[in-house]
């Protein structure tokens, strides 16, 4: 690309010869513009098309406001898909209807820039309805130029959402019939029902007076964006002589006579949104936010040494949602990790978590863990009867079941595993919070299996439980689970299902 210096030279010669030059080619024009292969000296738009005028008004405003370098022009799918032929600005061509979504992200990536979404009626008011409404509702600081010519131009004259009642198109061959296609869509009025937009105006390219009004509106919309005021939207009623089957003069007349009565020209919104309170967002460094501990944060606490008696140890925890089933699994997993093991935690997940039963699989291993899915757990922690009945048959032979109750259900058949009944809910209640039932079970599990150290559990509870009052109860709950095994099971003070006692 190169600027037309020849023409400038010619102009100076004319000036030197004493002629007054009133019109000259804009210095922005190029001899050859690479974005446009053919049609260097003309547009691809039809004679009398409104896009040419709209483009010119926007380009003039950008030039006058000195925004050319700062502008990112988002072109739609439709006749104006090739807007980048004419706008010597950064340009992003978007999928049909999605320009406001793309413009949203462009503006957020480049907040100081001017982002223009230029769309037709099919693009904006049909396929892209969701995107325009939501961009407007978020009050994105972008400018949308909505060219409404009541028809699909590029695809050859199909019905648009703004096609007038009775207007013929290739897909409404008998004229638009509200019983079948509904009524024309009034986008300005729709958007004006939202709180966020700063400026909404409808203009028309029907005659010179209205074109001058359009010029003003376009300029104002861009100024508001430049000043960071908010979402600005200008609907431009525009002629499409080719598809309408009219000559350019008739087409302009048709806007005045048919379109404007249906789409009244008006300023629908012209004020800055009242200031609102936004909650603050804390700012942190990436390592802080992602909980990445760097080495300069002092020495790590000395971990208790533990000789694990297993290669791999598998635990299934099951119960009602809300019994802390998933949390107990997570705590055990965290403990295993702190003791230097390979660990995995896999939950049952989904809607059943809230109301029904929940369970999770915990693997503790000295080696890389294959499947995190446990078929035959070494230990089942059953927090309720349903879980006991469901999962007890899966427990590895010689494994252990810890059941949250003082006795087994009467008709329950003892599996090939040992069962210990622990009234953990009652114990936790007495300590002050039923919520600690899972921690009582954890204390018992650790004491009975010695898979992980109680000291590790204390450390994990200290860091993972945030509520101070719960911390104290949890400490007691852990000890109570521990003591239950020591005092009641090992000495046989409470009769266990298999009569087992140390």
């Amino acid at each position: 690309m190169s600027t037309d210096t020849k023409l400038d030279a010619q102009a100076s010669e004319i000036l030197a010869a004493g002629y007054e030059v009133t019109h000259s080619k804009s210095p922005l024009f190029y001899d050859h513009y690479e974005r446009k292969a053919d049609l260097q000296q003309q547009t691809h738009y039809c004679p009398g098309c409104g896009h040419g005028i709209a483009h010119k008004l926007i380009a003039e405003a950008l030039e006058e406001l000195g925004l050319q370098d700062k502008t990112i022009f988002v072109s739609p799918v439709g006749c104006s898909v090739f807007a980048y032929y004419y706008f010597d600005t950064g340009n992003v061509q978007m999928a049909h209807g999605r320009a406001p979504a793309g413009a949203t992200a462009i503006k957020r990536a480049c907040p100081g820039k001017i982002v223009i979404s230029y769309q037709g009626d099919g693009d904006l008011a049909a396929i892209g309805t969701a995107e325009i409404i939501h961009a407007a509702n978020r009050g994105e600081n972008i400018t949308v130029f909505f060219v409404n010519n009541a028809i699909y131009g590029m695809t050859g004259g199909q019905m648009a959402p703004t096609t007038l009642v009775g207007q013929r198109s290739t897909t409404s061959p008998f004229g638009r019939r509200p019983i079948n296609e509904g009524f024309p869509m009034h986008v300005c009025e729709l958007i004006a029902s939202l709180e966020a937009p700063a400026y909404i105006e409808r203009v028309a390219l029907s005659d010179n007076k209205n074109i001058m009004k359009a010029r003003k509106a376009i300029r104002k919309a861009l100024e508001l964006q430049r000043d960071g005021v908010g979402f600005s939207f200008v609907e431009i009623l525009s002629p499409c002589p080719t598809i309408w089957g009219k000559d350019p003069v008739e087409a302009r007349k048709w806007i005045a006579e048919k379109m404007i009565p249906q789409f009244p020209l008006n300023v629908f919104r012209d004020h800055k949104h009242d200031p609102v309170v936004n909650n603050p967002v804390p700012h942190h460094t990436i390592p802080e936010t992602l909980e990445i501990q760097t080495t300069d944060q002092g020495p790590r606490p000395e971990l208790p040494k533990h000789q694990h008696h297993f290669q791999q140890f598998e635990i299934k925890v099951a119960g009602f949602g809300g019994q802390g089933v998933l949390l107990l699994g997570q705590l055990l997993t965290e403990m295993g990790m702190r003791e230097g093991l390979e660990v995995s935690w896999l939950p049952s997940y989904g809607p059943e978590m809230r109301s029904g039963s929940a369970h999770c699989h915990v693997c503790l291993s000295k080696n890389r863990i294959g499947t995190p899915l446990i078929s035959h757990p070494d230990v089942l922690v059953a927090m309720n009867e349903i879980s006991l009945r469901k999962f007890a048959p899966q427990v590895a032979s010689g494994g252990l079941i810890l059941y949250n109750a003082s006795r087994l259900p009467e008709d329950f058949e003892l599996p090939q595993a040992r069962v210990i009944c622990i009234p953990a809910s009652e114990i936790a209640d007495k300590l002050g919070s039923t919520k600690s039932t899972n921690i009582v079970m954890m204390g018992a599990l650790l004491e009975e299996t010695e898979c992980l150290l109680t000291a590790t559990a204390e450390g994990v509870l200290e860091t993972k439980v945030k509520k101070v009052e719960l911390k104290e109860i949890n400490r007691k709950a852990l000890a109570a689970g521990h003591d239950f095994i020591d005092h009641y099971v090992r000495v046989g003070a409470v009769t266990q299902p298999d009569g087992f006692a140390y």
Partner: protein
Amino acid sequence: MRQLCKGNVAIVKGAILAGCKAYYGYPITPASEIAEAAALYFPQVGGTFLQAESEIAAINMVYGAAATGQRVMSASSGPGLSLMQEGISYCAGSELPCVIVDIVRGGPGLGNIAPEQSDYFAMVKGGGHGCYRNFVLAPASVQEMADLTVLAFELADTYRNPAIILADGFIGQMMEPLELDYREAKLPEKPWAVQGTHETRKNVISSIFLEPDDLEAHIRKLEAKYIRASRLEARHETFETNDAEVLLVGYGITSRVLRSAVEMARREGLKAGLFRPITLWPFPKEALRKAASKVSKVLVVELSNGQMVEDVRLSLEGKVPVEFYGRTGGNVPSVEEIHSQLMQRVMSLV
């Protein structure tokens, strides 16, 4: 230092470490934790999080942000990815780098929220319209959710192409130790981006080529890129393949079950091995051929009714019998189940 982390959260941590600045997405189970973690972390480190009105809007926001040169991502699960396909095709056509995560759930239709691997065709074979390819990375652990996300951003930028993380509900929901290392992300220059500056004023991001010859030339250019990527970027992992007589092939969560199945088979004297593709596109054909060169049978296991198995068969060109075992609906086979399948099929060889 290791931290216990959920797979879905690890993706966001990896993305931020990779220098990703924006997340646009829409919630869906079992991928919602990704949006939630992004909503929590991105604003705190000066990035952008926006919950879009739909997956369609989300992917087009990704397109817009990518056009400015930002590292950007989105995540969803099957139905959301179906909605995104047009946008992904546009990203590929306009050569915009971006990372999209699919935490696969059961389909078709509303299906369910349990894990499946049934989006292989949709992601690996394109899914959207036109001649294009996505990088597709298949993590099998929480650590890989983060590591492969970083790799996905690098591949996306290097090749100016979308990269997909294809994981399943289990890998997304499970927790494992995660080790992260912080260093400032090195971002490549993107002179093609549109940034609202004098230097980038000339730039146009577009996928439209009206003249058939122009479009063909564009497609050839993309194809050259894909050929180059196929040669350089295929990744895989093997386990006990050196002396294997039977080769198990699976990716993602399935590869974890298969790994345990290999151990079980070897305990019982059957020399089994595992081949795990890490990149599903480009598919590690050469490595698979090598791993399968001495085996008498290949068993492909997927959480689908047979999708990746087609690529395995294409790679092995009929030289080794390839059998398939699949579970669907959210059922993940147990180690015992795979073992019994393996034994039946090995016995049939005798």
